[in-house]
């Protein structure tokens, strides 16, 4: 195609990305080993590797590292799944029914710009510092994203697709299941991906505030006791899990919704 670079160049761009990561790691290695930055602020790669090894062997505050990661992950997934089960139907209804839309849009429009983190103290006040609070924060936030995206999806179904469906003799219910629902799926998926990213950040935030286990708890505890390498390691694990979640969802999106936007 005119305008597209020859394939031999994509190797060049891959090489550049590789170079970027490699040079960052190299800089980190040199700067820390030359003593240019205090080890208390930025540990050297070998110090982190050593600490990671010892964390895997002995765990953190009596619990294995994977147990902390799993605790954060489970809170996120439970909140997300609950949000899917509630949010998708509510969102679809909101988009399809003018009455529902009129009723629900004002409160949701008010809630949307409120950062979910700001809700955490209130939720802890009402529900305590246990598992429910953390899951509830995620549920509330994720639901909002999914609801608003699902409603937008329904509203954006092209008019000519609906006409084509009516012309084929589809009943109202068939029109919903066979036309409106699949046509809204890309929007719903976008809502899910956004909700996942936000939820993962939110679980860490709520664990920073009040938790006995979890990656956010690890950060908060390690920072309190000046265990700097542990902070970095926890951050890295958070980043990797977040990346893994996003990659999984993108993969599912490309398999199921390969037709979107075309």
């Amino acid at each position, binding site marked *: 195609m005119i305008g597209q670079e020859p394939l031999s160049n994509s190797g060049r761009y891959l090489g550049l990305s590789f170079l970027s990561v490699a040079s960052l790691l190299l800089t980190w290695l040199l700067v820390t080993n030359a003593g240019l930055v205090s080890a208390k602020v930025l540990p050297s790669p070998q110090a982190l590797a050593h600490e990671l090894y010892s964390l895997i062997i002995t765990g953190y505050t009596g619990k294995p590292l994977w147990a902390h990661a799993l605790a954060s992950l489970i809170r996120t997934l439970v909140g997300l799944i609950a949000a899917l089960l509630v949010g998708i139907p509510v969102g679809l209804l909101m988009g399809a029914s003018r009455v529902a839309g009129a009723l629900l849009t004002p409160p949701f429009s008010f809630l949307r710009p409120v950062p979910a983190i700001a809700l955490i103290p209130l939720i802890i006040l009402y529900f305590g510092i246990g598992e429910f609070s953390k899951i509830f924060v995620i549920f509330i936030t994720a639901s909002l994203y999914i609801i608003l995206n699902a409603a937008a999806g329904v509203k954006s179904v092209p008019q000519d*697709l609906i006409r*084509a469906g009516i012309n*084929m*003799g589809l*009943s109202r219910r068939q029109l919903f299941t*066979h036309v409106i629902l699949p046509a809204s799926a890309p929007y719903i998926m976008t809502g899910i991906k956004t909700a996942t990213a936000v939820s993962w950040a939110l679980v860490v935030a709520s664990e920073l505030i009040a938790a006995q286990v979890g990656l956010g708890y690890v950060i908060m505890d390690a920072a309190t006791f000046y265990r700097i390498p542990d902070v970095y390691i926890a951050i890295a694990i958070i980043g990797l899990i977040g990346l893994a979640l996003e990659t999984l969802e993108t993969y599912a999106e490309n398999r199921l919704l390969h037709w979107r936007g075309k």
Partner: protein
Amino acid sequence: MPAPEVKIKVDQVSKVFASHGQAPVPALDIISTEIHAQEIVCLLGPSGCGKSTLLNIIAGFEPPSTGTVCVSGRTVTKPGPDRGMVFQAPALFPWLTVRQNITLGAKCRGTPAQDYEARAAEYIAAIGLQGFEHYYPYQLSGGMRQRVSIARALLGEPDVLLLDEPFGALDAQTRLSMQELLLQIWERFRPTIMFVTHDVEEAVFLASRVLLMSARPGRIREEIVVSLPRPRTFEVLTTDQFVAIKKQLLSLVHNHASGPALQSAAL
């Protein structure tokens, strides 16, 4: 010989669109006409003359302000597969394959699978897309997608096939092959066809009768019978007879289009 069955009866239909805060727009003046079985009738006219509005009323997407439309003796109240429609944009469902797009209507109507699968295969062959059954619309060209939407309309076993400027978005060569395809489908399946266009050549090439419409408000001002023999191929486009009919139609269109303003400018 018995008179051919009346498939579409348009009886005293007019359409006025209500306009917020402004005078209502008279889109269609009182129109009455009849389309017979196996006819190919063209509604020809400039943009805004109401030809698409009339087609939408026949399809059931719009109610007429006055009058009624009867298709095969039944009054039209809402859209249905008996008036299969082909829109200007193919309007295929992007998440379904070619075969699934064509058969969705039949499936939802409860037609048994062995019935519609066989006919779907027949139509897919008739539109020349064998081997593409499992392709998705985004993998097809514009012309191919439009062919699928024709097959989709045909599978509903419509009393009439309604086409609204179906080839307007295609390039000239694709348009010609699509026109030939429509003629081949007519030869094979003999549907009653009503299509809307602003292209004079297309009207003469396809139609057995052309209803020339004028605008504001829309009405049928002239009816031209196109007596070119069938089957027609692209070769008919350069015959003397074709050119004569085209000439007649063009001067009718032109005389109406150039009103007093243009004539005084020419002086």
